[in-house]
């Protein structure tokens, strides 16, 4: 009996009992696992995620392998269409458009990432404070949000861009300054709803401290919406960056971005439509992928939805 002979099997194997009926899988699944299962079923979101990862990898690593530098002019090969040598063609200075799209894309993605991170963090912080504390703080933050909502975004961005724009980081900071309100609105609303939920009341009744209630009971429940908002903000940042750059007020040469490329191409729309189509569709592709991803996350991160629902 002391050796390693076959371990004792479970003495009783229960026949079907009530406990087996409802939602009792063999091994309980973690929330992350369930979210992943839901996400996996969202075909469009998967497509978006895959596309986005491919694009990011491409932008990060491809410039190391392209034979041309993005800012290397070549007077002999100006304004060419796509060819084997230059798959995306060249611009009016003979620079390789593929190399420029990749480097410009990097900048656009960098801006998207910074804006998403910054605006979401700032918005979450202020939205959470306003929503949880309520009262005067909430009124103050809400009025600031309303103020921001009342300004016509593009003209004001333009004015600010004239003063502060021109390099990618300043464009990112500028966009964050105007986009945090979106995250703040979402988070404030979530906090308002959640703080009156019974489980928050229950946590108080169980003797939890306020910081614990926020950190453990409210914030995790807003994580889904926050992530979704962060994703959508990234997409929006790319669009706005392109718009500003197209108007000559965002990223400025020699720095480049997808918006700058579109801007540079605008004089050649009839002669070389590929010059505007390639960076333009790249913008669309990125933003579309991001939005698909956001859509999938929205469904996957809702803790109350079930696999198969």
């Amino acid at each position, binding site marked *: 009996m002391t050796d390693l002979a076959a371990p004792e099997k479970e003495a009783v194997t229960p026949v079907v*009992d*009530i*406990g087996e009926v*409802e*939602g*009792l899988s063999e091994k*309980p699944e973690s*929330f992350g696992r369930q979210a992943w299962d839901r996400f996996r079923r969202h075909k469009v979101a998967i497509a978006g995620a895959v596309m986005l990862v491919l694009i990011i990898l491409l932008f990060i690593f491809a410039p190391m392998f392209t034979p041309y530098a993005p800012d290397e002019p070549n007077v002999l090969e100006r304004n060419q269409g796509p060819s084997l040598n230059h798959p995306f063609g060249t611009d009016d200075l003979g620079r390789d458009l593929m190399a420029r799209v990749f480097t410009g894309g990097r900048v656009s993605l960098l801006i998207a990432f910074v804006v998403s991170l910054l605006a979401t963090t700032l918005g979450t912080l202020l939205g959470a404070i306003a929503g949880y504390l309520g009262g005067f703080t909430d009124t103050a933050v809400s009025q600031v949000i309303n103020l921001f909502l009342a300004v016509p975004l593009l003209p004001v961005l333009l004015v600010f861009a004239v003063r502060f724009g021109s390099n990618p980081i300043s464009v990112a900071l500028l966009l964050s300054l105007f986009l945090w309100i979106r995250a703040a609105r979402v988070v404030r609303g979530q906090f308002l709803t959640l703080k009156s*939920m*019974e*489980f928050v*009341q*229950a*946590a*108080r*009744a*169980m*003797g*939890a*401290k306020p910081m*614990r209630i926020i950190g*453990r*009971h409210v914030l*995790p*429940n807003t*994580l889904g919406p926050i992530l979704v908002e962060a994703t959508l903000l990234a997409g929006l940042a790319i669009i706005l960056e392109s718009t500003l750059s197209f108007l000559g007020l965002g990223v400025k040469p020699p720095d480049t971005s997808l918006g700058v490329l579109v801007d540079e191409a605008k004089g050649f729309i009839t002669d070389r439509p590929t010059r505007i189509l390639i960076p333009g569709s790249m913008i669309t592709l990125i933003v579309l992928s991001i939005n698909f991803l956001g859509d999938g996350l929205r469904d996957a991160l809702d*803790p*109350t939805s*079930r696999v198969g629902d």
Partner: protein
Amino acid sequence: MTTNGNPVLRVEDLSVAFKTKHGYAEAVRGLSYDVMPGESVAIVGESGSGKSVNALALLGLLPRTARITGSALFEGEELIGMDPDTLRKIRGRRISMIFQDPMTAFNPVFTIGNQIAEIITIHDSSVSDNEATKRATDLLDLVGIPHPERRVHQYPHEYSGGMRQRAMIAMAIANSPTLLIADEPTTALDVTIQAQVMETLAAAQEETGAAMVLITHDLGLVAGVADRVQVMYGGRIFERAETRELFYNPINPYTRGLIQSIPRLNEERGVRLNPIPGNPPSIIRMPKGCAFSSRCEFRTQVCMDQPAELEPVTDGHWSRCHNTATLPPVDDPRLIPGGAGR
């Protein structure tokens, strides 16, 4: 229940008012009662009678706009006006609350076990997470959750309503409190599940030896569980008696009305229910006299002029009525629970 020893909870002249545009809304008006160790006291009343507000006031869970006066001694300590941090340490450890809606009373992003373990570790940081989860499993077992060792790792949405309420009970007794406050613990559940959950609640109370304040609007629910019943109306206690006594010999016209309006299975078909006419008074504009006077079939002039006092009628049986002496005897067979329906 014996009445020797000190009460776990002694509420004295507790009043709660909320400031509104139209003046103060007095939800609880001069409430006094005792709860003895291990005893179950039911507080029964309609919506707006102040029964839940009373509980939230004790635990300091009302919004800051509430004006609370009076006294509530819990094991000799004054709860009203207690420093929030001290009160927080009492909540969930020495006084636990069971909430009405088990569907929303759990945080959807954490497992049930996680949440039961949390209440243990909040109050005793020396307990390891593993140990706490093990205790959570035992507690789930205690309240009759099948396969507790697996269920403990499941999320609230994987539980049925009845199971969630059981888990809620497990959570409430996790730290062996001396007082349980159950606020409409079965209102959100199917009638078929209600009885089971009440049994679980009674068993859990027995297990921990805790006293219980059971807040409900369902008189039928208290019959099997409570030792004493207090009927609340308009923020005040209208009748207080031992459970049996209250059902067999209701004195107050309001209590009689309540009991008469309970439908019975053993009644002849076609007999109409006998509801209390009218609505409870607005707590913003309470009548000058007895709060129930406008709906009372026995009212006299004095009822409309001045409020009645809660007075002892027989030993341990109190009623708030001007006309106790002149009320007709209880001869309605409907007033006898399970009695012949003729």
